[in-house]
């Protein structure tokens, strides 16, 4: 089962019927659906499914029992328990995602790369998302943000809730539990919004994203045949592809959840309309950044050690540096965590953490200088032109990071950057020459992207395309929705590729 398969729609339809007929037992239906969905999307070997079963049981059990134990414990015992429970959850993440690669690499150095084959758990779908949610819950219980949940079903639904389990968003127990526990009545408006949100996601993924992928694949597959400028264009295409793929996936997930009356937190807020790299990360994969800030960065800044460090730096380097140095150190940890979360592969680490961190650091350190320059040049920061320049600058800087993701390896990433610099305008092929894209495809890609950016611009301005359409007469809504459906039906590249963020 995938989010674009027939079985997913059949699953949703049957699930919805049972859900709305089951009255107070709705959360049990959600748990049953979540378990079914989780095992249905996994590759079909029994051994693999048994392994997943064991991992899922372990995570739910540890989160439930751990929460209860932490809640009852006091003082130091509470901290130690929290530490062990979180360690137990984090261990799943490390064992399933990193240990095999690390140990195989080390064993390879000694000529025995197969020595740690038993550590190869294969990919555990969604582990990076639900482990973070579970750790967040235990941390909140430890901080007494809310009492531990006594019903294991509620924990099970929270950890495994099917729309979010494979690619997020990373949720908080306080946001979700009340929604799972309340009885949801059948609301046609909500269902309509859910379906429309899903359609919007399918439009982004099937009509736009997969077409941009063809360009990226062609150019990065044989980069030496292209000029630096063409590679840059392909990188921009990757940025558009990544955004429409990931945000499209989120739209499908949120729309599906909406059908069951459960609202998930937004993961995107018009990221391409960000004036700075920092703002970009506040608008892109919001729940992940928010999680790392709330559970890693801020607590770290509040630790005794950091406060002491701040005081020492203040004495030695002055007030400003006293503030900044602990902040930068906490940022290092935050970005290290984000880089590690993205899989720990060198090139992904550089793209998702290394370069964004450096850009933010430079932005922060150099901001007084930028301020002086803009004052000297009498630049009006509120002007549309200045904002547009800032948007472009931010996105261009991030394209630099995405070169490494497109390259697929650190060394290759550097080689591509070198090639871009040395062959800025000289290439052997045209960007579209090695693809099957026709004029119609280009219209769909760029026309579709214009619609997406328009919707994002409305979101940036605090409005929404859905609300705008809802205010219009039914006939207009009908035309807009059905035009979207027809474009997907006629031009959707169905079954061509999986969602990028499923790999995490």
């Amino acid at each position, binding site marked *: 089962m995938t989010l674009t398969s027939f079985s997913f729609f059949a699953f949703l339809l049957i699930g919805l019927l049972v859900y709305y007929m089951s009255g107070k037992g709705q959360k049990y239906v959600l748990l049953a659906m979540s378990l079914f969905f989780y095992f249905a999307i996994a590759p079909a070997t029994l051994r693999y499914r048994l392994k997943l079963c064991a991992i899922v049981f372990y995570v739910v059990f540890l989160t439930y029992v751990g929460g209860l134990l932490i809640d009852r414990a006091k003082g130091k015992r509470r901290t130690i328990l929290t530490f062990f429970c979180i360690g137990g959850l984090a261990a799943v993440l490390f064992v399933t995602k990193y240990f095999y690669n690390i140990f195989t690499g080390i064993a390879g150095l000694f000529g025995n790369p197969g020595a740690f084959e038993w550590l190869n758990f294969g990919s555990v779908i969604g582990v990076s998302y639900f482990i973070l949610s579970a750790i967040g819950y235990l941390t909140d219980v430890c901080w007494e943000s809310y009492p531990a949940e006594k019903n294991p079903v509620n924990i099970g639904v929270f950890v495994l809730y099917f729309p979010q389990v494979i690619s997020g968003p990373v949720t908080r127990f306080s946001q979700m539990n009340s929604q799972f526990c309340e009885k949801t009545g059948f609301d046609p408006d909500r269902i309509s919004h859910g379906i429309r949100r899903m359609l919007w996601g399918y439009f982004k993924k099937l009509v736009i994203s997969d077409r941009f992928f063809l360009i990226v694949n062609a150019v990065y597959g044989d980069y030496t045949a292209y000029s630096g400028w063409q590679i840059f264009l392909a990188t921009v295409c990757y940025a558009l592809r990544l955004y429409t793929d990931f945000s499209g996936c989120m739209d499908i997930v949120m729309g599906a959840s909406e059908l069951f009356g459960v609202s998930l937190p937004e993961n995107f807020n018009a990221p391409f309309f960000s004036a700075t790299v920092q703002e970009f990360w506040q608008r892109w994969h919001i729940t992940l950044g928010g999680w790392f800030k709330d559970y890693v960065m801020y607590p770290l800044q509040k630790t005794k050690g950091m406060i002491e460090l701040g005081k020492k730096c203040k004495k030695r380097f002055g007030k400003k540096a006293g503030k900044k140095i602990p902040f930068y150190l906490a940022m290092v940890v935050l970005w290290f965590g984000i880089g590690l979360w993205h899989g720990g592969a060198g090139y992904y680490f550089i793209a998702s953490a290394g370069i964004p961190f450096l850009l933010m650091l430079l932005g922060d350190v150099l901001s007084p200088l930028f301020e002086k320059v803009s004052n000297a040049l009498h630049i009006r920061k509120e002007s549309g032109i200045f904002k547009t320049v800032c948007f472009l600058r931010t996105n261009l800087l991030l394209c630099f990071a995405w070169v490494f993701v497109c390259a697929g390896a650190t060394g290759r990433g550097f080689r591509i950057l070198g090639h871009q610099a040395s062959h800025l305008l000289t290439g052997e092929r045209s960007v579209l020459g090695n693809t099957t894209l026709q004029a119609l495809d280009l219209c769909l890609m760029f026309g579709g992207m214009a619609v997406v950016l328009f919707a994002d611009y409305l979101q940036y301005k605090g409005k929404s395309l859905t609300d705008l359409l809802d205010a219009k007469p039914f006939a207009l809504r009908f035309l807009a929705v059905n035009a979207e459906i027809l474009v997907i*039906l006629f031009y*959707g590249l169905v079954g061509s590729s999986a969602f990028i963020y499923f790999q995490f």
Partner: protein
Amino acid sequence: MKKLWLLLALFLPALLFLMGVNYFLDPANIFHSDGKQIAQALMQGNEVYIGSGNTDERQIKKNMISLMPKEVDLVVVGPSLAMTIDRVTVGTENMYNLALSGADYYDILAQLGMLEEQQVKPKKILFCVDSTFFDEALYGQMSRSETLKPYADYMLQVISNQDAKKPSGTDWKNAKVLVQQIFSVTYFQACVDYVKSNGLSSLQNMRWSIREDDLSENAYLRGDGSWVYNRAYQSATGETVQKNAQEYNIDYYFTKDGHVSESSKETFEQLIRYYQGQGVEVSLFLCPLSPSLYTRVENQKESHMLLWELEEFACRMAENYDLELYGSYDPKQMGVTDADYYDARHVRHEVLCTFFDWKTY
């Protein structure tokens, strides 16, 4: 309630549109089983144009069997190599050609099972011997015969003297596939592509129609079930056959390093013994490869022994059971050239006729 109606009004038309296009255009004939009507038209002596390339030949031939007279002079079974053999070729009106594109081990057994089940008794069976029956690695990959497999199992029980249980007459396609395809966006796009490449006019009589004049360029079935290729296919020259021979996937059709399956050989011998016991005459036909293709396979003989093993087996069977054997895989023995073919494998109808010396029964 009004909200519910609005919800339905918003999304239902598109859903119905998707379902309607998939159902009515249906280029793969998933929802339309015209086999019975086509078979009826054929058995009434009509010639039938097949509009869609995906018409289920197996269903047509199955329905033909159910409409056949109980006693027939000759039945032809085998792959497409034998599909053009017609009543004129064999000199009897009471003949039916059951050959199918890519007919494999199970297809042929299923047809023989259906004949048995319908108590149709042929005087003679012409068996076109090909790798699709005898190469397990090849027919193991084919799935076209799946729906008819119960009849193949039935025939296997019959020839091995087991207590054979007739297959149930229920003819239903997998419900899951039907539901999946009616809502399938991929199938919708295939329907649109079909209309795009064949034009809107293709929707008229797109599946099949009775051939009333000689104006159409399309392929058609004769009343005896034999096949006439479309005009474009018939216009192939020696050069096009040579080109086709170069592109022919010999590693697939004569499995590289493959051998004749022992179980297929055993089944075949059981079939011969069974029919001889029933007083049915069995004849074998080895359809020659085009000279270009034969040379290509011969050059790689070591890794494609299957072809030679099969010919040797057919000759042995003919000798052991006193069967008539027509043809040879070797075109030199048959005195044919590349120009005598439609493609690398299919001999022109007029040339094929010369291989047989049959007269009226």
